């Protein structure tokens, strides 16, 4: 019965977001342009510097061409904070479903629509780059990277809900979405692989959850991480952070609902 309920929610969300096809396609074009800009920039760097950090021209181009594909799986955009501020959140309180489960199912459905429209664009660009620069990818490594990306999606979802529930107390929760993105840039490998960082900084950043959104899935996809111990530690740390954000999110939601005044509705 519950499974049917959440399946219907997913189906409705899927249908709803199919009407925004042009917008989704537009988003994937924007992300692709960002990836191409990175490729041009890093290619220019490696023309005058043959090996920088542990990367050569092929691996650094591989890193940034995988960025939009991995991001298509791991990135989350939600409006939960805005719904709370607008009072629309009260609609969910009267419905017969778990709030977190509802938003998770909605997010998966929205993600499916986005992947449907964006992956063809990304694969086209990736194919051109692979042929032009003679890049090589291993299917096994890509599958491992994809597995980490799915784990990162779950992590990011609970990280996002933790931030979103702050809307019960803070008006400017929109700013925290931007701060989160800044953390991805600085600590997540979004702008530069973490391997470029000085050792002490790398060790510190490795303990944090942000690396899982881009750096870890991409590194494994490229076959840059082959040590079994590192693999086990990365999995355990990922599970730890998922559990941490599940608990934090649940506690914040519980406290926030007590405070929620449903203004605006």
């Amino acid at each position, binding site marked *: 019965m519950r499974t049917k309920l959440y399946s219907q929610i997913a189906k409705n969300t899927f249908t709803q977001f199919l009407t925004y096809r042009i917008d989704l396609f537009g988003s994937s074009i924007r992300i692709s342009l960002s990836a191409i800009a990175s490729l041009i920039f890093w290619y220019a760097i490696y023309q005058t510097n043959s090996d920088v950090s542990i990367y050569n021209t092929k691996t650094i181009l591989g890193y940034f061409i995988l960025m939009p594909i991995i991001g298509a799986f791991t990135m989350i955009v939600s409006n939960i904070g805005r719904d709370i501020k607008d009072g629309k959140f009260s609609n969910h309180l009267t419905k017969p479903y778990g709030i977190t489960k509802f938003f998770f199912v909605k997010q998966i459905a929205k993600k499916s629509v986005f992947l449907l429209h964006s992956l063809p664009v990304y694969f086209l660009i990736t194919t051109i780059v692979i042929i032009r620069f003679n890049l090589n990818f291993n299917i096994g490594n890509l599958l491992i990277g994809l597995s980490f990306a799915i784990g990162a999606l779950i992590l990011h979802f609970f990280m996002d809900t933790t931030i979103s529930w702050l809307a019960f107390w803070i008006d400017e929760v929109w*700013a925290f979405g931007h701060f989160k993105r800044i953390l991805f*840039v600085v600590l997540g490998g979004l702008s530069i692989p973490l391997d*470029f960082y000085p050792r002490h900084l790398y060790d510190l950043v490795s303990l944090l959850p942000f690396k899982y959104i881009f750096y870890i899935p991409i590194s494994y996809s490229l076959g840059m991480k082959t040590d079994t111990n590192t693999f086990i530690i990365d999995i355990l740390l990922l599970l730890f952070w998922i559990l941490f954000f599940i608990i934090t999110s649940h506690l914040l939601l519980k406290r926030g609902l007590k405070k929620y005044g449903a203004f605006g509705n």
Partner: protein
Amino acid sequence: MVHLGIRKLKKYLQIYLTLIKFEFILRSTYRMSFLFEVGVDVGYSLASIFFFNILYRNINEIVGWTYYEILFLVGLNIIFTQIILDVFMANRLFALPQKIKDGEIDMPLLKPLSSLFYLTVKGIGPSTINMLPGVFLVFYALVKLAYLPNFLAIFFGSIIFICGILIGYSIITIITTITFKLNSSSDNLPRLGFESIDYYGSNPHQIYSNIALKTLFYIIFPIIYISSVPASTILNGVDYRFLLAALLLAATFLTITIKFWNRMIKHYSSASS
């Protein structure tokens, strides 16, 4: 004719000063939101500086640009980005698709002034404080380079920078104006325009080394005049070819923008009123 032109300029200047006044009043009403906005913009600027700091621990130069020269470029780019965001994007170009969809641009079209000006230009406000990291970075880089640019370099560099702003504004507006035909409320088009000039315009222009990229980014989509060429002019002296090209391209793009806007606005249909 000249007298009419001066009168028109005076009129728009007066309107612009009023827009600035409104902007300050609005910002002082939502102070917390303004502070968070400053925090976000400063955060992005610091992230950019952090990126180059980490990169230059691994390399010595990027297409001939040393670390402090790149910081100078980054500072100039931050200033450019803030001007574009503050004057043209926030509540103007970003909001235009939704306003078109909702039919909310009837009133601006009826006013006795240019609809392009009214709908795409906002009064510069307290958000210009977000430029400060860029200004600081520019001066910091010059101190570290132990270099004081001469008057001509600063003068012509500033001219090219202003041309870059006009080119950037024109590109974003041309792309956004397509919304009149698409009737989509999404802000994808203005974001596409802004992000394109931000991603490609923040790099040293020498990275566009082959003939295809040079044709694209020097002429067709001339984003090199946004920060790289102005920075290069101030640091290395003026290349008169770039100066002439910047002036020509700014005039051309502005003219195309005005003509394209006037053409596309004919597709607008009011929702009510």
